[in-house]
């Protein structure tokens, strides 16, 4: 009896003490530059990408990753490590993204991810610039003879869980007062399969995703993308909140790609804009626009060192990956995503792609 009571009191005391001790003894080692330093030490950037959406992030049968989002990871690796190939890709489904960024398993993510207020708050992440302006859409079978989402009233729609689409389509259905059954699948492959097999009359995701999936349908002509735009989906990269430094690098690599396109610097001609070994500052300035000098970190301009990386980081990026337009043309134009007249054209041509100045 006595021993029993005694041991209980003891246990309670011990637990309280250890908890207190452990709590006070721990300081989170999260400071400016911590992840960037870890990347440099490791010599590799761990980047979360999509493996299932052709053109954005796709893993082919030989295990190679390719796509618009994938190339952005390469650009960041080129900026930090000088080599666009030093990337380890981590394929993530929509539902796995949050845990991957919260737990620090990945250094950054570039995976057709929409920036939203609740994600900004809840994921513990910093969202970078929008690289692709998108909107959720709905695909259905031509045979149904349907011209808009409203005409799908009473039907079923397949959607992937863990996406903004899942909530955006609910909002849209509520707004239009429709009765549509949503069938929720854990990954893109099963969502698509179930739509193809007739479980749902339609399926919804970002329009870019719809275009990409339609291209892989047995008969693409059987499917149409309805004109409705369900939501705004600004897609861009993100990185953990615990390292502001990495977020800044990501942001400026993104703007650098846009600036490079604006000034007409490509992977082919970037060398022409560099300062020659014996070229005097005066001669170089007479030849090359000062804005370009700064973008490329030439002529004693102070660019990359602000973030602890090479001053001419954009040279490596452009040489190895290309500018924004080159990346777009490489991956998205072949899918049939027309750039002219879309939000994703340069602001000089009426779009929203507008890089901040390298000043």
């Amino acid at each position, binding site marked *: 009896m006595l*021993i029993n009571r005694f*041991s209980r009191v*003891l*246990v309670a005391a*011990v*637990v309280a003490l*250890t*908890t207190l*001790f*452990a*709590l006070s003894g*721990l*300081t*989170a080692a*999260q400071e400016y530059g911590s992840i960037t330093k870890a990347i440099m030490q490791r010599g590799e950037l761990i980047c979360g990408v999509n493996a299932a959406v052709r053109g954005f992030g796709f893993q082919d049968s030989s295990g190679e990753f390719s796509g618009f989002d994938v190339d952005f990871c390469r650009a960041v690796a080129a900026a930090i490590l000088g080599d666009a190939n030093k990337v380890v890709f981590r394929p993530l489904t*929509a*539902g796995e993204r*949050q*845990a991957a960024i*919260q737990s*620090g398993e990945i250094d950054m993510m570039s995976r057709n991810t929409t920036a939203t207020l*609740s*994600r900004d*708050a*809840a*994921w*513990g992440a910093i969202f970078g610039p929008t690289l692709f302006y998108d909107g959720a859409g709905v695909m259905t079978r031509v045979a149904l003879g349907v011209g808009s989402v409203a005409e*799908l009233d*009473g*039907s*079923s729609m397949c959607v992937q*869980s*863990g996406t903004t689409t*899942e*909530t955006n*389509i*609910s*909002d849209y*259905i*509520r707004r239009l007062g429709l009765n549509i*059954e*949503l*069938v*929720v*699948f*854990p990954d893109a492959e*099963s969502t698509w*399969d*179930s739509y193809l*097999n*007739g*479980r749902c*009359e339609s399926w919804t995701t970002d329009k870019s995703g719809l275009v990409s999936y339609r291209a892989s349908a047995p008969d693409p002509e059987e499917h149409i993308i309805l004109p409705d735009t369900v939501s705004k989906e600004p897609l861009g990269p993100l990185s*953990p*909140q*615990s390292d502001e430094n990495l977020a800044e690098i990501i942001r400026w690599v993104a703007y650098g790609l846009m600036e490079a396109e604006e000034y007409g610097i490509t992977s082919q001609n970037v060398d022409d804009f560099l300062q020659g070994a014996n070229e005097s500052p005066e001669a170089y300035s007479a030849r090359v626009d000062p804005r370009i000098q700064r973008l490329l970190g030439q002529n004693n301009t102070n660019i990359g060192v602000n973030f602890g990386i090479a001053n001419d980081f954009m040279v490596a990026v452009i040489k190895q990956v290309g500018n924004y337009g080159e990346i777009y043309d490489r991956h998205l134009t072949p899918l049939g995503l027309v750039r002219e007249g879309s939000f994703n054209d340069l602001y000089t041509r009426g779009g929203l792609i507008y890089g901040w100045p390298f000043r």
Partner: protein
Amino acid sequence: MEQTATANKSSSGQLNIPIPAFLKDLRVIQAIAQIVFVILFFSAVAVIWSNVYASLQARNLLPNFTFLGVQAAFEITESPAWYTPNSTFGDAFLVGIINTLRVVTVGLVLATVLGVLVGIALLSTNFMLRTVTKVYVEILRNTPLLVQLIFWYFVVMFSLPENDIRVPEESVFVLSYRLLAYVPIFVAVWWLNRRLKLPQRTLSGVLLGAIALEVALGLLGYRLTLIVLAGILGAALFFLAVRGLFPASLRGYLCGGGLLAALHLAAVLLIEGLKGASVLPPESYSEIMPVFFITRKSFVMPELAATANTGVWLAILAIAIVLAAITYIWITREIERTGRNIPRLLLSTLVVVLIAGGAWVVMAAQPDGETVVIRGEEMSVTEARERNLMRIEEEASISTHPLVFGLPLKPRFRFEQGTELTPEYVALLVGLVIYTSAFIGEIVRAGIQAVPYGQFEAARALGLSGAQMLQMIVLPQALRVIIPPLGNQYLNLSKNSTLAYAIAFSDTYTVGLTVMNQSGQSVTGFFLILVVYLSMSLIIAFFMNIVNGRFQFKTR
């Protein structure tokens, strides 16, 4: 005192520290060990927790439960009418729990029933049945459940008929009068087999005959000539076999197959006759009764709706059941007193049927209402019927029947009337039940085999019938062995239900993941999921312990 101290020194040799007597007490040593263990355990928990806490704090993501009151804003495929995207994350969780319970409770019952049948079939003296069941068990036990679920959903469900049917004009399924006739046929054969001395394996012959007939009709289409020919040939085979014409190994099969074909012909002639007398609808689809629809989008059954008389009728039903129970108890006393064998179950069932059925007939005989309100507009029932506006709610509002049935209706994409099961639910249920039944079957087989053979012999020597032997001698002893591992299988089934995630069924785990994803509260979300499954396991274990206690040997 000094003497003991020196004794200590001399015996131990090197060590000189006297160990206090109470430390040599085994209970004290055990207590200390426990305390040390508890300290280590809680320290580990505290370290892990504080790590998690610190990193969550750094991201401004401290776990809390306030998010449960926030608007969920997402739709759940399978949810009660009260759940909308305006409901909260807490409501969404609740929907997940309800769905889990729907699968687990129904699954436990079905898996037990099927498992017992499998177990009995494994012990069957019929070679074919025993072998087929063994193969069934081995295949199911040796492939991963996830693979089986994916198969049930993405292969089986997606090979069901497409959804582009019009109802009620076209129907996909299945429940024809002819197929229904197999039920009385099988009962009749079973009864004949008990009364007459039919050759061995007649029952197998009947099953094989039915399969062969259905395959032939499936391949050639529904042909009356074929049915008539098979029936006449079957009748001939049956009589020859009963006379002992064929070799003994074939006799049973031919006898059973022949009997089936003959009875099937009789049933078809009866159905055709009823159609001729327009008791059954004569149109082309009368072979198929559009009641139960299976498409790859849903499984639809007629819907039941309550009317103004439902409450009264249910009260009468309750009274009838009480009366039946009293009858049962009273007859039992009579049997014990007089030793006569009175069919108590039959008589008490009859009490319920007569009272409740009588009440139904009386209520149904009252005239129905004559006007009905449809979308706020009052009109006569005849007019509403003509304009095809009567749905089950309207029928229920005018009917005097205790309950009304609504046949499935499908205006365009989805069924509007009728009780629906989603293919996700069906695939998960079928997958879990079939998988678990293989394990339960093995447990039942082992349990029955654990009863000493002498017990069977003793039962037979007492002159007990097969059913009596099973009920009074074998089962009470077998259940002692069966129940503890059965409880484990129940726990397995309830936890395996989380694989719902792979096939889009909205159970606790699937909805929980969505909640975590949309709210950002992973730690709290996982904690809640854990609590749900832990409680479910504890409840199942609790009940299985009670049941177990009742079946163990009573010892003092």
